[in-house]
């Protein structure tokens, strides 16, 4: 009982003691880097629509995202993306490029354990939950729409 009290007091003390970083510089960095990545995406999209005027909006966006995923995977491979991430934080995690980085980085990291047990098994250690949650929630949405459509 006394231990519990002491632990609570200690946790409270630690919380007050932890150095507070100023939020504004990191918020600003993630704002402009994130915004820049989106602008690059828009540029790529406009480029595709200009080169292939006949493709649909949907196809254009798919091509844009695939291009961004490619760029991010490449930057991860040459060891640049983690440095962008260190600087920008959320700015480079939230865009689709962050998703690409979270799949490529464990693949490269665990290459030393072989192709099957290293690259393939560890590929989704970070991004796995994203796909699981995304697909599961889309099924829920689909189910709700299906039930609604019955009436």
């Amino acid at each position: 009982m006394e231990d519990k009290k002491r632990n609570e007091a200690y946790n409270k003390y630690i919380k007050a003691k932890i150095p507070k970083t100023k939020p504004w510089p990191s918020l600003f960095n993630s704002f402009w880097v994130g915004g820049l990545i989106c602008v690059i995406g828009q540029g790529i999209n406009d480029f595709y629509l200009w080169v292939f005027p006949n493709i649909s909006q949907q196809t254009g966006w798919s091509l844009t995202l695939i291009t961004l995923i490619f760029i991010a995977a490449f930057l991860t491979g040459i060891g640049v993306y983690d440095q962008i991430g260190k600087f920008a934080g959320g700015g480079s995690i939230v865009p689709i490029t962050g998703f690409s980085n979270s799949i490529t980085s464990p693949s490269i990291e665990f290459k030393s354990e072989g192709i099957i047990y290293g690259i393939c098994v560890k590929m989704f250690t970070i991004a796995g939950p994203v796909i699981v949650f995304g697909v599961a929630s889309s099924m829920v949405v689909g189910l709700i729409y299906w039930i609604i459509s019955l009436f």
Partner: protein
Amino acid sequence: MKTGQKTENSFESKQTIRLKNQPKIIGSYAIVGPKEGKGNFADFFDYVMKNDFFGEKTFEKAERKMLESAITGVIQNAKLQPKDVDLMIAGDLLNQIISSSYAARAFQFPFLGLYGACSTMAESLAIGAVLVDGGFYQNIVCCTGSHFSTAERQYRFPLELGNQRPPTSQWTVTGAGASIVSLQGDGPKITTVTFGKVVDWGINDVNNMGGAMAPAARDTMLAHFRNTKTGPDDYDLIVTGDLGKLGSEILIDLMEDEGITLGMNYCDCGQTYFRRDQKTLCGASGAGCCATVFNSYIIKKLNEGEYHKVLFMPTGALLSTTSSQQGDTIPCVCHAIVVEK
């Protein structure tokens, strides 16, 4: 049951042991990675690696090679032959302490593997000193190391992941240190040993190791001072392992609460390891942190006569990724040894 009988070297509590024969540290060797080689202790290390791979294919193999070359180096430093070594006591941070075991395979010494996380250097020196003091062995090699890249992938995230490190996080040192404990030869003496209890004050933030480990350091320090009837002023240097900037401030506060003031003679290896511009946030950590500082800077200063009595007490966080994912708090331990000129 109390027998009322006290042996010559016993203290009030059996936690602290006085070593009658005062085993000496007759050799020491420290090898570090390139980033560590640019830090505050750069001038004292025996060898600085040119890159983190150390000519190997994987980081794990590099860590193993680092331990091997530390052991080779320390044997030369003590002017011994490999056949003179009777026992090797070593540990590291990887699962099943593979780096130490594989290094031991290369040397064919009798081998004791330890896991004390970042406190392993003091733990191995303490056990080595007790075994030598008892007359069971002549020369014992004590060795510990850690590698930033192997620790990072085991405990945290892949190296290439673009995430930010929280402000309380610390940087695992790439480096290995080794000492030889013996009764014959010259060198600083290990006079007293205090083995620590496992202390857990309910911290479960894996990015705040300093906060989790400071209570363990407090517990061992109090026990040591009580048993030996000494205080901070009796030592030229009191040095903890890798509490870091935050953790060492917490320890100073915790000791203040007990009425003990840690003054200028207290320092923390982790806090002082890197230069400020190296951006390691709360400082260095890892088994290699205190191992490399102890086997370079501290031993050299003891030999030069700048320090006469040093209390070396690194802490270790005994968690695993499984325990922290299951929401357990972090149990920590701290072992102390007194080294005198």
